[in-house]
């Protein structure tokens, strides 16, 4: 896993962004940027060469699921891995996220271990298919 990769963290709660950033720092990542909802994240993704997106689902403005759909719908960034970190824990929603092309789904509250596992799995898959 390239620890210099550019990661975009999208969550409307600043505390949550800090927690995710902290955990990613512990995992060795150094290049992280924050956005407080999909509307803020979208232009950043368009111009930012991000290698990975960690997003919440329920946010004002553009939600995480819409952000995910927009990413998959834009040929230039469609392949960016997206990890959904959300309090939404209904079966239907997990299926909805899967159908929209999510790469990993973490239910809040979560542990550092879960984040590490999901990230490892996503990059392992990426390496297999590359």
């Amino acid at each position, binding site marked *: 896993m390239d620890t210099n990769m550019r990661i975009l963290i999208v*969550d409307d*709660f600043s*505390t*949550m962004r*800090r*927690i995710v950033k*902290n*955990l990613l720092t*512990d995992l060795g990542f150094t290049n992280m940027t924050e956005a407080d909802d999909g509307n803020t994240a979208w232009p950043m993704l368009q111009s930012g060469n991000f290698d990975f997106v960690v997003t919440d*689902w*329920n946010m004002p403005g553009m*939600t995480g699921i819409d952000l995910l759909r927009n990413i998959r719908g834009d040929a230039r960034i469609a392949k960016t891995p997206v990890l959904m970190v959300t*309090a*939404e*824990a*209904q*079966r239907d*929603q*997990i*299926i909805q996220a*899967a159908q929209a092309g999510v790469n*990993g*789904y*973490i*239910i*809040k*509250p*979560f542990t*550092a271990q*879960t984040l590490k596992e999901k990230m490892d799995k996503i990059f392992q898959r990426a390496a297999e298919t590359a």
Partner: protein
Amino acid sequence: MNADLRAQLSARLRDLLEAIDRDDDAAVDAGMVALVRSHDESLFAHVARLTRGLHQAVVNLRLDEQLATFAGDEIPDARSRLDYVMKVTETAAHRTLDLVDQARTVTVGLEEAVSHLSEAENVLAVAPPDVANVGVLIAEVGATLRTHGAYLRQTLSELAQAQEYQDISGQIIRRVITLVRNVETALLELLRAAGGGLQSAPSRPIKALTGELPGPAVPGSDPSASQQDADELLASLGF
């Protein structure tokens, strides 16, 4: 019957009696028609009043139903969600305080390192200095600082993570605020419909809660998935 109507009726009856007394058939017929028409008009007015009353009653009834839903389902649900918020915040506060206590033990390690350094200084002050002993002391300082540094780093990371409750509790509280606002609006509508003479209109209409996200799961009350359920579900979908 109001005063105008009474005066009108008595005038018509007087005219009619006079017409009968003087045997004026045309005037008797006209008087009879006028009387019947005025009766019809007051009947129509009465029916209209009844209809308005009925409509109002229906409006009130719908509000009653809405309030019954609030009182019967949504408020108890909000209460249990707020109970959960209290538990989560309390647990997080205790966890934070425990971690702060844990971090304080690092200062013991720092003091230990400082005392080893002064010891080394003392050794160096003596001529000729016992360089081998200084080396041992410095190695000890290094080991102590490394151990406590790693411990502090881990503790700080856990401290940051303990603040996670703010996200969950914030989302739950936001939903309860929406419910409170809806109850307030419904109560104002009810007061107005009941003719309470309330002047200020509610700021917004009651909105149906369709299409909203279920939000954070509250243990024991929602049929929600755990991380393990989510993993299994995604695995079954080929993830």
